[in-house]
């Protein structure tokens, strides 16, 4: 939130002077990829550190509040390899990651990797639909608000964005559930009684998707709007806009062809930088609506608490956000000739 409201510092300054060359691009890409590998390795190490080193005894954490015997505890310790020296545990863990093996869930006795994999689809569906809608809505409002800077539309939408920004996601979800009553299903993704054919399934999923999607969009769109608005405002006074107007261009063409494309670039970077917020939204929305995605899996893992599962979800969520940011960095270079060729 704080960084959303103070945009500016994040964009990297254009690379130092030098001719555009393919070797420079290659070096840039390799550098970014190298940085990405280091970051993902950091995430993996952090995951290990958090769940094996920090708590005094993971087995005690997991069995907190449940009756156990010393024998059962010793058995658990053996199963998770907790009696091995730390360096061996770490090597086992890293080796497992390379093979796609995230260990075994404590609560469900199933491979964590398998459980994560079956939850990826629903999350992508929810987050994908929600993000597309939020981006369209936010950019549209942001562009119009900035162009009519100070108008009633601008003032109303900015205050609305700030208010929605202050609303906790889960509370909004609960309110929507209460207000709509039986209009929409209260949770899950598909009703088990729905026929297994394609169309009924699709309709049912769509029906289940409405409320989670609205909640997600309501919370996430504000950042796109505010970023787009301030980014376009910075372009508003630019000379090239007056040049375009002097050429006799119509006002909305000036906006569409000249101002918006330039304002879009910082907005794209910031949007990628705030992917963490999207993940955050997914966790709370999925928890409220029992949407069977990664966020709900995280909730199930933390309420048990099932440390191997939690560790797996943590690594996957954090790792993918880090990876997406590298993609954003690379895309930025493709989109913005100023960064590429200065």
């Amino acid at each position: 939130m704080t960084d959303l409201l103070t945009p500016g510092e994040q964009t990297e300054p254009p690379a130092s002077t030098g001719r555009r060359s393919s070797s420079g691009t290659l070096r840039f890409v390799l550098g970014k990829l190298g940085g990405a590998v280091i970051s993902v390795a950091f995430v993996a190490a952090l995951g290990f550190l958090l769940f094996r080193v920090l708590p005094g005894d993971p087995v005690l954490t997991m069995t907190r509040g449940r009756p156990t015997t010393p024998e059962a505890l010793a058995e658990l310790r053996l199963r998770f390899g907790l009696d091995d020296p730390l360096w061996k545990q770490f090597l086992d863990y890293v080796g497992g990651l390379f093979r796609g093996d995230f260990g075994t869930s404590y609560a469900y006795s199933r491979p964590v990797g398998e459980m994560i994999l079956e939850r990826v689809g629903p999350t992508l569906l929810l987050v994908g639909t929600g993000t597309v809608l939020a981006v369209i809505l936010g950019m549209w409002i942001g562009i119009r608000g900035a162009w009519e800077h100070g108008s009633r539309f601008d003032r109303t939408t900015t205050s609305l964005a700030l208010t929605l920004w202050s609303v906790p996601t889960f509370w909004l979800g609960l309110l929507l559930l209460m207000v709509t009553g039986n209009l929409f299903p209260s949770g899950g993704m598909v009703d088990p009684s729905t026929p297994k054919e394609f169309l009924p399934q699709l309709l049912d999923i769509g029906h289940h998707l409405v409320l989670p999607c609205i909640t997600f969009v309501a919370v996430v769109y504000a950042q796109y709007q505010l970023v787009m608005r301030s980014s376009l405002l910075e372009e508003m006074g630019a000379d090239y806009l007056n040049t375009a107007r002097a050429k006799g261009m119509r006002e909305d063409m000036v906006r569409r062809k000249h101002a918006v494309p330039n304002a879009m670039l910082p907005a794209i970077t910031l949007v990628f930088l705030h992917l963490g917020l999207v993940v955050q939204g997914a966790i709370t929305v999925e928890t409220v609506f029992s949407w069977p995605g990664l966020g709900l899996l995280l909730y199930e893992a933390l309420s048990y608490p099932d440390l191997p599962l939690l560790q797996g979800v943590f690594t996957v969520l954090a790792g993918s956000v880090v990876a997406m940011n590298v993609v954003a960095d690379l895309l930025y270079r493709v989109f913005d000739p100023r960064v590429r060729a200065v």
Partner: protein
Amino acid sequence: MSQTPSKQTPGALAWARRKEAASRAWKQFRVQRSGLAGLIALGVIAALAILAPVLTDSDQLDVTKVDGPSLGAPSGDYLLGTDENGRSVLLLTWWGARVSLTVGLSAALLSVVIGTVIGVLSAHFGGWVSAVLMRFTDFFLVLPSLVLAIALSTVLDRGLFTIILAIGLTSWPSTARLVRAQTLSVEARPYIERARALGGGHTHVITKHVLPSVLPLVFANTTLAVASAIIAESTLSFLGLGDPTQVTWGSMLKSAASNGAVTTGAWWYLLPPGLGIVAVVLAFTLCGRALETVLNPRLRGER
């Protein structure tokens, strides 16, 4: 050394100048209606929260000592109805403000202190210190902070301190970037060079010159950080990671959701804690934005 008419010591002179700057900032803040509204709202809420033990009876929060109906609708006895244990929702919301505000303020303070230290150090020392610290900051900036906070509060023992730690340790990177940028611009000014030439060491430059000019911005940033810390606190409590012995707005919403307030339509249980969060977060955000316009030279003239 007698240019100053009133023969003040350098320290007193500096304080007088700061006082003047503060009153100038206040004048600029005062004209921003939304910021002022936020400040007034915060004052009222804070006063209510502090005075809660004086104005209300904390016995009514004890499940064993209350006799209200379970999930009762608002009535003359219970203006905002009751929760599943028959406690007054009005009282719970009132007392919940205390914990939510405490956690929000302490977590924001922790995060801002970490961010300021890292930002100032990395800008002041430059070189490899800066490179390492900024790499570290960028890594945490990108990492989804709620996921990290969830992980931290799951593995540590439940309690208020854990929540504060989990939020504070995960939300500092944006402050660090901001402070670093500001420190860099301060240190490029000639008076820092003069201080160095006169023999000022690192400690002198940082505490006497860098910090005083960075702190106003940090203050504005803290106000915004409290807003996000309160949201984070309520989310963590809602997920069941809060201190089970404390009533917070997040934990109230959690028990409301798990005791069927949504399906039975017990709006009096769902609305007050949520509105409390929105009011406080909005007030802090408005204050913070107004402060930023006053104190952040980059934003002056905008908006």
